[in-house]
């Protein structure tokens, strides 16, 4: 019995039908709220479509390698694999412009890669190396690349939603025509921070799109057991906010919706909610097999909706790829790319021990301020927090 069926029997869910949800398909698109603004203008060249496919394959192979490296103890901590959710990341991020901002939750390898952060610097971060995209201080949950407007993966469920709202506030305050894409999981929508942030975004008219990756489970709890209203997009009505629900396994559908809503955010200064229905093929984290709370049938059913072969077939049908051999060639090339990333990470330097207390504070006066704590202190402020920050480090 699926959790949805269980919840239904328990009287918790008003809409049974399995977390697998029978309604995934071309008719999934639903819209609510204020009228839609500008239509999607996204129209990609054949080359660019091939690149999107390549990125999806890269993410899948990267995650498979990540799991192997975790089991070899090269990667520590919590490690959340995104396999199955590639179409959401690649589709939703494609319309982002250079100056737009991306802020995400902690399942973020796919989002960092889709934003163009190099596999080398992501893998090095997972390995805890100085050349990692967060300097070895972040790890799997806290990837970042501010040069690409990626202000981080954040590890407290829904805690980053106000931050993203604040980044949009900056754009509004400074009259800059950019938008923020804030990714979160469906498990975050019952947290207070989410409600407070959406209210502020609606109230102030902020250019932010909340991208909900509804992969049906928050850890081992299905959306039907967690949310009185399991269709997340409907929640936006409480904030007079436009919302859409799309098939998260269809990269082009996600891309068009994301483009439309980001464009509207930039041009009309209005927030929106985009729910993408998707599924994670693996467990919540590497430590979770993902099978105690999901049936084999459900997992297999969703693997039948794998977004990668689906998009590959679409591109074959359109003649953008001419043969299966071309798809195989992409896979081989991306596999080599992942192996290069592993090699890079293996050979990358560990962060210097003497850098331990760097970046706690950034103000040039901080060192001087903290020096006065030093007399008798067993904690070495003078040596660590201070002089390294003064510019020696």
């Amino acid at each position, binding site marked *: 019995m699926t959790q949805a069926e269980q919840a239904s029997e328990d009287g918790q869910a008003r809409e049974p039908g399995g977390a697998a949800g029978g309604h995934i398909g071309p008719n999934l698109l639903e819209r609510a709220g204020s009228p839609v603004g500008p239509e999607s203008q996204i129209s990609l060249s054949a080359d660019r479509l091939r690149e999107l496919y390549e990125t999806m394959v890269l993410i899948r192979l990267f995650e498979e390698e990540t799991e192997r490296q975790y089991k070899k103890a090269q990667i520590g901590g919590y490690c959340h694999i995104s396999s199955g959710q590639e179409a959401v990341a690649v589709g939703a991020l494609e319309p982002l412009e250079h100056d737009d*901002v991306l*802020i995400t939750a902690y399942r973020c390898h796919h989002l960092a890669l889709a934003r163009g952060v190099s596999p080398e610097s992501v893998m090095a971060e997972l390995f805890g190396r100085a050349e990692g995209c*967060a*300097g*070895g*201080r*972040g790890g799997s949950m*806290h990837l*970042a*690349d*501010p040069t690409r407007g990626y*202000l*981080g993966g*954040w590890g*407290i469920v829904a*805690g*980053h*939603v*106000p*931050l*993203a*709202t*604040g*980044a*949009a*506030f*900056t*754009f509004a*305050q*400074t009259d800059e025509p950019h938008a923020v894409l804030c990714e979160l999981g469906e498990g975050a929508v019952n947290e*207070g*921070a989410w*409600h*407070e*942030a959406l*209210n*502020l975004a609606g*109230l*102030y008219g902020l250019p932010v799109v909340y991208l909900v990756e509804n992969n049906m489970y928050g850890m081992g709890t299905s959306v039907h057991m967690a949310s009185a209203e399991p269709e997340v997009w409907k929640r936006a009505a409480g904030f007079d906010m436009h919302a859409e629900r799309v098939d998260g396994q269809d990269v082009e559908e996600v891309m068009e919706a994301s483009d439309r809503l980001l464009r509207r955010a930039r041009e009309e200064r209005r927030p929106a909610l985009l729910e993408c229905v998707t599924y994670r093929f693996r467990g919540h984290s590497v430590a979770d097999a993902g099978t105690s709370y999901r049936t084999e049938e459900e997992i297999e059913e969703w693997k039948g909706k794998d977004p990668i072969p689906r998009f590959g077939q679409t591109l074959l049908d359109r003649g953008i790829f001419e043969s299966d051999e071309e798809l195989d060639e992409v896979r081989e090339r991306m596999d080599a790319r992942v192996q290069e990333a592993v090699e890079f990470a293996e050979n990358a330097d560990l962060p210097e021990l003497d850098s331990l207390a*760097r*970046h*706690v*504070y*950034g*103000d*040039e*006066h*901080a060192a*001087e*301020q*903290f020096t*006065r*704590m*030093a*007399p*008798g*202190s*067993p904690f070495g*402020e003078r040596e660590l927090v201070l002089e390294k920050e003064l510019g020696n480090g």
Partner: protein
Amino acid sequence: MDEAATDTETTSGGEDQTHAVDELERGEEPGREELDEQHEYETEEITYREALRRALREELLRDERVFLIGEEIGIFEGSYKVTAGLLDEFGTKRIREAPISEEGFTGLANGAAMTGLRPIVEIMTINFILMAMDQVVNHTAKVRYMFSGQVGCPMVIRTPNGAGNQLTAQHSQNLEGWFAHVPGLKVVTPATPADAKGLLKAAIRDEDPVLVVENLPSYNLKGEVSQDPDYVTPIGEAKVTREGDDITLIGHSMAAHRSLQVAEQLEEEEISVEVIDLRSLRPLDMETVARSLAKTNRALCVDEGWATYGVSAELCARIQDACFDDLDAPIGRVGMAEVPMAYAKNLENATLPHVKKVRAAALAVLGEETDPEEWRAG
């Protein structure tokens, strides 16, 4: 230090009180250019509340990235009137009225600081910052370190602590020690009008997040404050507010005032008391404390909050590390009674670390016993 508030004086403005009415009739104020043209600045006697308001106004004029966000800070002019007149002068964009959602707007400010603005958040009282605790501790404090310095978070959170107005258990707390516990944050606690202006301005100009803990019962306290628009009190510097030889009383916020009053009383008994106002809890100026104890050899840590696991606990540990050989007696400490605050006035008085209790604690460090029946009621 100026006119210290007494134990029985209840000087705070309440949520529905309008103590700042006289200050609203302030007439024309100098603009940024006029402020810049002056080269010699005088001091002026103003209230702690007005000192904060001027710091906000001057920094709003100086830096267009600065904006204020909080509950009731606009039309209502602040629950304690600190933001009086600012909405009229700077408009709704720089003075952002926020709904009652501390976690939401603190997090919003956090994100705005990460992307180039200089937010100043007003949390109506420190009791309500608990709604935003995850943002402050798990987000604000972590931004710079977690991404190895690629992003900063230059924001200010202003909020008053304090007790003594029969506001009872949920509205009478001194929780600043919780934040001073956290690497990545700075915490300052101005006790005087001069430091209220100087530390708030220093906090706004800092590149890192600073919690400015104001003292609610001190909002009407008057003192001399510089008119210099670039007057700042350096963060991390304690101040010897009274010199003495026999014992050092160390406190911050309201405890700094109480310590001074005890020093005056003990002077009549020919006991010479040195008083240190810490002003900043993180970073903590142990140099000034150690210098004083090398002279007096006796220390009493005075804290308006609970002693257990509190600011005074940290001070005691630091002092025994730094000054062990200088000490002639065990370090004393005194804080709020270890109970939630009661409503009844007599119980509230007995809960506070009032002057009589601090005096008894100081005498204990000096080896003199007192009869608790003489002081426990406050």
